[in-house]
């Protein structure tokens, strides 16, 4: 069971208190109607499934009810950092920058 540090509560809490909300840093297009079907499809359906570093969103549902970001290793489950919505990760995979 993961031990997550909520950047709002400033505490480590048990995984039971959180909901996983999938990949982080997906920005809703400003003008969806201007996108091609392919672009909209990419936004809607395509997600990363990396072996290693992953930035993901968690929701402190039984705590402060805030969403925040987590940088987690999907192989070892090591958590490198947690940070607030709107902030950028400090730990990134080198190959990640496209």
């Amino acid at each position, binding site marked *: 069971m993961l031990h997550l540090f909520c950047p709002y509560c400033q505490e480590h809490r048990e995984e039971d208190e959180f909901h996983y909300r999938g990949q982080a840093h997906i920005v809703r297009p400003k003008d969806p109607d201007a996108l091609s079907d392919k672009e909209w*499809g990419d936004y809607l359906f395509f997600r990363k499934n990396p072996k290693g570093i992953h930035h993901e969103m968690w929701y402190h549902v039984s705590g402060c009810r805030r969403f925040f970001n987590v940088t987690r290793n999907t192989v070892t489950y090591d958590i490198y950092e947690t940070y607030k919505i709107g902030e950028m990760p400090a730990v990134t995979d080198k190959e990640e920058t496209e």
Partner: protein
Amino acid sequence: MSQKNRLAQGGRIDRNKALNFSFAGQHYKGYEGDTLASALLANGVDVVGRSFKYSRARGITGHGSEEPNGVVQLGTGDTTVPNVRATQQELYSGLVSNPVAGWPNVNFDLMSYLGKAGALMPPGFYYKTFMYPQKLWMTYEHFIRKAAGLGKAPTAPDPDTYDKFNQHCDVMVVGGGPAGLSAAYAAAKTGARVIIADEQSEMGGHLLTFDQPINGGSASLWLAEIVAELEAMENVKVLPKTTVMGYFDHNFLVAIERRTDHLGERAVSGTRQRSHRIRAKQVILAAGAQERPLVFANNDVPGVMLASSVATYIKRYAVVPGHDLIVSTANDSGYLAAIEWSKAGRHVVGIADSRTHSDGALVAEAKALGINVWFGHAVTEAKGGHRVYSASVAPINEQGDKVTGDVKQYDCDTVATSGGWSPVVHLSCHTGSRPTWSEEVIGFVPGKALQAQHCVGSILGDHQLVDCIDHGFDVGAKAASAAGFGQGEVLANKPSVERIAEGKAQALFLVPHKKPVSRAPKQFVDLQNDVTAAGIELATREGFESIEHVKRYTAMGFGTDQGKLGNVNGMAIAARSLSKSIEETGTTIFRPSYTPSTFGALAGRDAESLFDPERYTAMHQWHVENGALFEDVGQWKRPWYYPKPGETMQESLNRECLATRNSVGILDASTLGKIDIQGKDAREFLNRVYTNAWSKLAVGKCRYGLMLKEDGMIMDDGVTSCLADDHFILTTTTGGAANVLEWLELWHQTEWPELDVFMTSVTDHWSTMTISGPNARKVLAKVCDDIDLDKDAFKFMDWREGTIAGVKGRVFRISFTGELSYEINVPANDGLFVWEAVMAAGKEFDITPYGTETMHVLRAEKGFIIVGQDTDGSVTPYDMDMGWCVGKNKEFSFIGKRSFDRPDTKKAARKQYVGLKTKNPDEVLPEGAQAVWDPEQAIPMTMVGHVTSSYYSAVVGRSIALAVIKEGQSHKGDTVYFPLADGRVIEAEICDYVFYDPKGERQNV
């Protein structure tokens, strides 16, 4: 029966406390301090079970969690526990136990004749034989399971209580042997919070068997002192009888403490077992090592035991499990069994040592006792059925793979073997770390630590007591320091222990036989699953090269013992057969749980009514008293319907429906989700998350809204009312309330944090009752005099603040029945009072309470959808013919809008919402029935849709159904067929989904 194998003196048992117990219907006596296994051995019980596949007689082999044979059904009735290892079960007065394997009984077994039929059951036998015809597998399985016997689960609820503790500590020590105790002590001295757990009844580990002097005195003295000191420290928790069953992510461990299992079958008071959920900053694994047997012909006959177990039974339990002993060993530690046996006054025939020589201290001691030592020899075969009566001893070559001379027969009743020590790497495996082979240790040791984890003692292959204690102190201090306590220096005096001279151990696994492996009598590797050396060789010959595949094909390590004794031998045999090294072949890994765990301990208090919270409305007790039956909706208990004496369910529904249509009905709607939304941008926020427009909704007005996911599919619906220009109350489906709130928060927090909007769940704050029917206004008028109820003053889709039965509340004129309808909301504390007042007011109109089932029928008559019943996450508003609910000119591209333009979403051939009338008006379609155009077509038929809702409607006077049918809207009047699983085909006509009052006049009166 007397305890013929019990010594007059010694052991950690209390001879003043005799205990009666039974095994397989026979009654015996043992002493407090015994395990069931030691007591059985004391009474000379040889056979404790039958083997899984060949049904051979089996006896006690080990003395701890590694035991593969002595697995019993403990107790009877509600409190029985299957698959308990007799070696770990402490004896109590009145203990009842039975073998789990063996049918009809352990001493006479029908199945053994199957085993005697020779090579009838090679590995993969079940796969190969019982695969075809597939239909018969259930029959085979039943027979095989009955014959093998795997223990029986209790059939009645467990009367005992169990609980869970959440624990936090700085240093968690697994294992209470000398290394673990030293580590815990050193860590505790720094002030760190320490937990130390050990699966045995008392701390001490190997010290309970091997009394090597510490500080010049007895080891048991040092043991008693250090345990007493640890127990006295406030920052230390000592947990004996506690198995750490799993080691999970982020240093989370689960340990199961058996609190009363040593006292009786039922907990007299308190909890029977407790699971400790431990989050540790640092973990020290001091789990020790388990002795590995040598594999030789007929090594499964009762009387063949681990050497360390023989020594343990003598030293700890004062039980000598036989009269004439032969030891077969590849190291010094095997000698201990012979030394203790001899000191107990019984006869040691000799020690066959596979090595050419050893200068170890134990070897010298054995020789000094006058015991025969045969270097370069091994036991190659045991003879016997229910007990060993002789052993074959032969000279073998230095490589240990060939018999080099004449085989001699020696009479004996016990063969003790030692092939070395396998570190207990299980917990380290749980973290995902693969163990690595060590030539020096002759065993797998924990792989690279993936978490804040340390290992110490014989888990690393350090078997010298001096190293265990010395390193224990060091690692304890180091771990504490890593957790923020101390500088890593040992703040205590290490005890002085002498190093014992030790001869080098030999890597011997399978003892050679005169005959090749395939011809020799069975040489067992995994005793619990009857896997033999020949079976493993056959698997490799059949092409299984990966050790993981060999494991699955032969079922090696699949038993409840997870192959604790056999796995390393099996890997060594597979490696040799593949002409590879053990390092190359590698190992399989272990998963939780280390030993079988009871469901009770895992569930704790979260059972029965505490398994999941149950939510009740403020009027719940009234519903109970008025005969309601309840339905679970999420965690809510909602009235389902209110049967009167003698009524069938359908009669109740007909009565409730007609009462509402003809006079007035009342529904407890408190469970609908209610979210209070405030802020100057609340209106804009609603515009973005709902399909329809909210810009012009005036204060005092309500509007129905549809919420979509970004893929354009319906997610939730409900009525939202404008309380003030910056204040709304939004309702959700009962089951969707929590998800909708999370969904709204997600968008607000991650995409539109600039919007000034706040959301609060107020579901529990309000009691909601819906009065519906032509007389609804008359009822409301009797309890409310400060709202103008005139139909033009308080219109459909308006809401008003007012006083109902003297209580301040809100009344919403909205309708889910199609009738004149008011939804009264009052603070929950006053809910029951107002409900009763409304019931009293409605008495003259025969006001009828109705439940969720009637609510479903009434809304279906009107064609109103229920999200999650008529929709399933794959339908758009247009599919549901609800385009009227989609705002066409909204400025912001609301959630899901763009997806309407996806080719798949806008194609014509989508399933569409329609009504169905069965040809036979009394026949009610089953919900979920699949629709086809042509029932005569070949199977698999082309399915064109399915029934989403289906009822008998009293007011329409026939069955009605709602469905989604491919292009259904353009097929009105067409016939569609529903072939059912029972062979019937129901014929129905596609029609409009509104069955009653199609113009919607009744709600506007």
